[in-house]
């Protein structure tokens, strides 16, 4: 619908952009604005008061006291004229006023006779609409009353500005949060293997769930082929979270990878890792405690042998084919990065068809359900239930366990699962 050009200001495109920015059109009724129109009607002794917003082809009423319609066309609307002025636009007797006598609201059934509208002027100088008072009788408006109407309009604008700034602040907060989450995700992904290696005769699957998506977690896992026919399976937990923890995680991960190239004994890998973590601890003022489980997997007979060493890490759980109940592996040693006297020993386990091994972090076993911890029993129960579904099935079920609304997870959680086919 074309709008009378005389009712459109030169800055109409910018003005409409401002109307959009305040995002007030077609929002629900609101007490703050309704109080102002009720107050204006009472103060001026008129039946009708409106907070209007002038849109491209309509005038929409944010608050309407004494009238039922929600919007009118822009052409007949007196508010469209009012916003072309800097001061209150006043028509004391519309039926006698050449500006308005032909207006359908005046000449028609509505019978408007008195109109006074103060523009709702934003901080950057755009008139979004008006606060107006309307009567079906002619009236006069004193200069004092005109100032009061302007002050009430200013209160409406203050409220609109307040809402805009609150919305802007929330949007900015969301942006910052999104940016932090993106950064954390990228950093996290750089600390986890892009893909798991293919192990003929077995399958591998892993999951990682940070406690807070906006913060890099302290858990990590890794799996890689050290050489043809030998794979490393690693899981660990460095102290703390965030970028400092990420730096320690990177050190741990790369040290384990490098050391694995030089030795077939996972206990040696932990010894090297311990020395690397202790090196320069005082200078860096970085706490570098880390628990880790390092396993080397090799084919053996018709199955595999898994040689494992642990640095204070929760024991890997092994569920044998046909057995009820998973058994924890016996490997143990102190967390790395604590002291130079740390001793690590490896244990070897034969694995055959149908056996399932789960490496995990304490974020998984120490998630809460009801009043208690999930514990290793819950992980073992998942292994038993999903043993025929392969490593992917076990991991999907562990992940689902943490997603259960009855389970609260307070720390990062990770698992790396091996199933021998």
């Amino acid at each position: 619908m074309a709008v009378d050009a005389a009712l459109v200001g030169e800055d109409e495109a910018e003005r409409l952009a401002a109307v959009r920015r305040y995002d007030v059109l077609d929002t629900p009724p609101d007490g703050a604005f309704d109080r102002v129109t009720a107050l204006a009607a009472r103060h001026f002794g008129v039946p009708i008061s409106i907070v209007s917003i002038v849109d491209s082809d309509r005038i929409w009423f944010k608050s309407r006291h004494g009238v039922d319609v929600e919007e009118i066309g822009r052409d007949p609307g007196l508010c469209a004229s009012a916003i072309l002025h800097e001061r209150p636009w006043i028509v004391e007797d519309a039926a006698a006023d050449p500006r308005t006598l032909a207006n359908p609201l005046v000449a028609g059934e509505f019978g408007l006779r008195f109109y006074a509208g103060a523009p709702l002027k934003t901080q950057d100088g755009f008139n979004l609409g008006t606060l107006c008072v309307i009567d079906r009788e002619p009236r006069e408006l004193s200069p004092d009353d005109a100032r009061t109407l302007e002050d009430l309009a200013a209160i409406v604008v203050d409220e609109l500005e307040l809402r805009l700034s609150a919305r802007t602040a929330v949007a900015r907060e969301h942006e910052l949060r999104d940016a932090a989450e993106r950064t954390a995700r990228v950093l996290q992904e750089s600390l986890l293997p892009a893909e798991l290696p293919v192990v003929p005769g077995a399958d591998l699957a892993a999951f990682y769930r940070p406690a807070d998506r906006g913060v890099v977690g302290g858990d990590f896992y890794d799996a890689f082929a050290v050489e043809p026919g030998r794979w490393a399976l690693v899981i660990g937990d460095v102290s703390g979270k965030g970028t400092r923890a990420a730096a320690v995680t990177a050190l741990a991960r790369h040290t384990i990878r490098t050391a694995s190239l030089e030795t077939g004994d996972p206990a040696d890998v932990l010894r090297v890792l311990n020395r690397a973590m202790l090196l320069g601890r005082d200078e860096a003022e970085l706490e570098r405690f880390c628990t880790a489980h390092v396993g080397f997997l090799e084919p053996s007979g018709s199955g595999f042998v898994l040689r494992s060493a642990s640095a204070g890490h929760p024991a890997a759980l092994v569920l044998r084919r046909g057995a009820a109940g998973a058994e924890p592996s016996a490997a143990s040693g102190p967390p790395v990065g604590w002291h130079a006297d740390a001793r690590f020993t490896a244990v070897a386990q034969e694995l055959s068809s149908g056996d399932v091994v789960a490496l995990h972090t304490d974020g998984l076993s120490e998630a809460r359900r009801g009043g208690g911890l999930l514990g290793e029993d819950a992980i073992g129960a998942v292994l038993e239930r999903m043993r025929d579904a392969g490593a992917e099935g076990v991991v999907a079920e562990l992940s689902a366990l943490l997603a259960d609304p009855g389970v609260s997870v307070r720390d990062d959680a990770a698992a790396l699962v091996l199933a021998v086919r």
Partner: protein
Amino acid sequence: MSVPADPQHGVPFGVDVRRDGPVTTVTPEGEVDLATAAELEAAVGEMPSGGRCVVDLRRLAFMDSAGLRAIMRLDLRGREEGWALVVVPGDGMVRRLLEVSRVGDRVTVVDAPEDVE
């Protein structure tokens, strides 16, 4: 002073500290986790060189790796400042956590505070 360790389960965390000459006995109760481990560590306070700090964990309902890190840091601090750390793990999950981490290789672990020489 005490703060709830986990409002969901309402187990309040608190630390009792007793100083008797060169011996300080720190007894936390409730749960030691990321939220409360620093409070446990701070409760040890100033220690005299040649002194002994007994951390009695028998009244804990729960301790996780954050609590273990607090123990490791206290061990490092004690060695630097010249006092001894003694841990009383009690039974159950705290003892298992300390065993997995081989805390006994490095720190004196006893069954009761009276057992310290």
